[in-house]
């Protein structure tokens, strides 16, 4: 950063400082007077992406254009598109939110999302480019029974993409509702229709460009916010963090999280605790299990694998991953400042009041840094970040729908149902478009039906299935000579069933008996607490009396919630699966289900020996390492 630009950012910051004296965060979202601003920014982004789609539509003539942009994407472009595909609302808003609410643990959580790309870079990207054509199943079908492997590969692709898609739709619906104030169903339909327009007309060409545009906007917005947040500290990391830990809002949050042990700690100790591990992750083994699902799951996500077919050669595929790692990693380093900045300037309590998961931390920080809820620039920043969030959801959903549609049209329809018969190029594109409409309509339906579902569980499930089923199958068919059809089918089934099954009996689901026990505890403890607070109410110390009033209000709220829980589960003692308590204590099943998936592939292959798969090994191995005949791979 040069001196000149530093002066400029400082000047910009000073210019807006007087406006932020009394920030009010009672309501998230853009104020009524500035609603037009949001729509203007939205309209601009939609107009640009629609124009790109219009240009792309002219270029989409064959199945190859539709699925993989004709292989004409460069490594740099693909790197940005991967970042656009991967930085979903969950990682963009969720991680900044986690840091703002839980400090260090939130930042630690972001690391796994980047390390995941090492697996993709070293083991998956280049061989996949050299062996595959449009889909994950192309790789699995290469030296195995095409029909069987295509069926299991397509089912797994659709399963993983649907979990991920539902999470995006639900998260997106809530987000758009909070930010702009239109209702949940309307925002889900808006996301769905817009996404369909891109994919249906522009195929992979339009999807790629929407992802690139979105990634550039996201990174640009984050850089601007971080510059404004960090500049007053002269871009010193210890200076910035020292101010964060000295903030009473942050210290109050830590005291709140720690409960009784906090009483023995000084304010400085409480603040410092925000930079230490353990405020969010209570069970280390949970974190390790989640880490495994991330690090191996990303390499099994069908919509990410599909991106490697859009470049022409393995060298370009490698270049894509390196660029993606630079962009994604750089972005997560920025979230350190977004998250801690939001904690310092907006305050964890205010962030949690708007959204319990902290998803509004980034947008609220943008509004604050721009001048607060009553300023033009503050609302412009919020509108801009909201529009980027919306574009994020649309771009990610587009990639997922394309992956599902390709599994349906290319693997199931062309590869299995019409196997052995010639499908014309025109027929293939039509099949792809029909599948896109089916998947798109389903995603809107699922998004509306799944309103209020736990998004984190769904994203966790998507990664768990990808890591436990797709990853072992892809890895072993590429690197193990003896791997065959039996192994692929067994690995896919065992991996998927283990991941989904273990999640269904995990602590992630709601267990009415536990909820009711907690509710009874709150109600039973209430009279004693009420007596203490009532006594303090008459205290001569004004601060103590005020605190007592607040305590009483909080107590009323807690009791009301406990009663509501009791009423809700009055006739219900068991979870969705009919269980009174979790059978399996891990929140993410990866630690168990990933090894099971590998064992499935290994034993399946050994039990059902297949000479043909072994005889094709030389071809697979030579081809993935030399890139010979890339354009001719996978005869249908």
């Amino acid at each position, binding site marked *: 950063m040069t001196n000149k630009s530093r002066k400029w950012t400082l000047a910009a910051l000073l210019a807006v400082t007087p406006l932020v004296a009394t920030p009010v965060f009672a309501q998230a979202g853009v104020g009524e007077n500035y609603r037009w601003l949001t729509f203007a920014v939205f309209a601009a982004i939609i107009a640009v992406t629609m124009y790109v789609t219009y240009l792309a539509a002219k270029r989409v003539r064959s199945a190859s254009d539709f699925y993989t942009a004709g292989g004409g994407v460069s490594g740099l472009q693909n790197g940005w598109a991967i970042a656009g595909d991967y930085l979903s609302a969950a990682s963009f808003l969720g991680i900044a939110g986690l840091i703002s609410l839980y400090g*260090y*643990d939130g*930042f*630690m959580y972001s*690391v*796994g999302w*980047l*390390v995941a*790309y*090492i*697996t993709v*870079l*070293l*083991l998956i990207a280049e061989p996949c480019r050299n062996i595959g054509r449009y889909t994950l199943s192309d790789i699995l079908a290469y030296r195995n029974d095409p029909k069987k492997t295509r069926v299991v590969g397509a089912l797994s692709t659709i399963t993983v993409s649907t979990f991920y898609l539902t999470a995006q739709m639900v998260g997106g619906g809530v987000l758009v509702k909070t930010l702009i104030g239109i209702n949940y169903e309307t925002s889900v339909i808006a996301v769905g229709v817009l996404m369909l327009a891109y994919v249906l007309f522009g195929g992979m060409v339009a999807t790629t460009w929407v992802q690139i545009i979105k990634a550039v906007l996201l990174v640009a917005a984050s850089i601007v916010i971080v510059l404004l947040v960090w500049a007053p500290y002269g871009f010193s*990391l*210890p*200076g910035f*963090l*020292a101010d964060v*830990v000295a903030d009473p809002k942050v210290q109050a949050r830590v005291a709140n999280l720690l409960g009784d042990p906090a009483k023995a700690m000084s304010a400085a100790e409480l603040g*410092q605790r925000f*930079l*230490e*591990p*353990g405020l969010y*992750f209570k069970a*280390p083994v949970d*974190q*390790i299990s989640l*880490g495994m699902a991330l*690090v191996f799951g990303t390499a099994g996500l069908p919509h990410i694998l599909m991106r490697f077919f859009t470049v022409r*050669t393995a*060298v*370009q595929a*490698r*270049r894509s*991953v*390196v660029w993606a*790692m*630079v962009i994604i*990693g750089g972005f*997560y*380093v920025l979230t350190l400042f977004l998250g801690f900045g939001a904690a310092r300037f907006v305050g964890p309590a205010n962030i949690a009041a708007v959204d319990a998961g902290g998803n509004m931390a980034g947008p609220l920080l943008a509004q604050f840094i721009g001048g607060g809820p009553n300023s033009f620039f503050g609302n412009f920043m919020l509108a801009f970040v909201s529009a980027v969030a919306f574009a994020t959801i649309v771009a990610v959903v587009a990639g997922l729908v394309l992956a599902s549609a390709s599994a349906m049209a290319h693997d199931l329809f062309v590869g299995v149902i019409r196997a052995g018969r010639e499908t014309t190029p025109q027929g293939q594109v039509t099949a792809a478009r029909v599948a896109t409409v089916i998947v798109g309509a389903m995603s809107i339906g699922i998004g509306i039906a799944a309103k209020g579902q736990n998004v984190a569980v769904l994203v966790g499930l998507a990664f768990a299935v990808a890591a436990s089923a797709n990853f072992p199958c892809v890895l072993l068919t590429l690197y193990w000579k003896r791997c065959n059809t039996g192994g692929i089918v067994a690995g896919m089934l065992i991996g998927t069933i283990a991941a989904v099954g273990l999640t269904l009996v995990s602590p992630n689901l709601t267990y009415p008996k536990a909820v009711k026990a907690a509710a009874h505890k709150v109600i039973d403890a209430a009279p004693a607490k009420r007596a203490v607070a009532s006594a303090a109410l008459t205290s001569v110390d004004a601060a103590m009396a005020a605190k007592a009033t607040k305590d009483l209000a909080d107590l009323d709220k807690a009791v009301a919630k406990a009663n509501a829980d009791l009423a809700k589960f009055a006739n219900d003692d068991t979870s969705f699966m009919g269980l009174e308590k979790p059978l399996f204590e891990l929140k993410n099943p990866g630690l168990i289900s990933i090894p099971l998936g590998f064992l499935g592939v290994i034993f399946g292959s050994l039990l059902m020996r297949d000479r043909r798969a072994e005889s094709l090994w*030389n*071809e697979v*191995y*030579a*081809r993935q*390492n*030399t*890139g*010979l*005949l890339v354009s*001719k791979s996978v*005869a249908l």
Partner: protein
Amino acid sequence: MPASNVADWDAIIRDPRFQSLHRRKTTFLWGLMAISVVYYFLLPVGAAYYQDLFKIRVWGVVNVGILFALSEFVVAWVIALAYSRKASRDYDVMAAEIAKEYGGVKTEAVEGVLV
């Protein structure tokens, strides 16, 4: 481009140059993979079992834990860079030589070193 859809794959596999490519790639790739996995899991393990170490302040309020988490990013980038340099200087050239002889296919190794 060759006219046919088949190359002599068995001959490629037997070729000493391919054998050498395979050996060098396997050691380097899986070695890097092992380093990255071990280094990554040191973070959650350290955060869970070595909290006293992670809490030591080394640079103002910045503690070992924060520096270690930041180092994860640096290590990931260094591994990516190390692999891509090695691949474009070494493996791509060897692969191009083999591909040229057996298929006459032009590859991108000639484009030179990446990043």
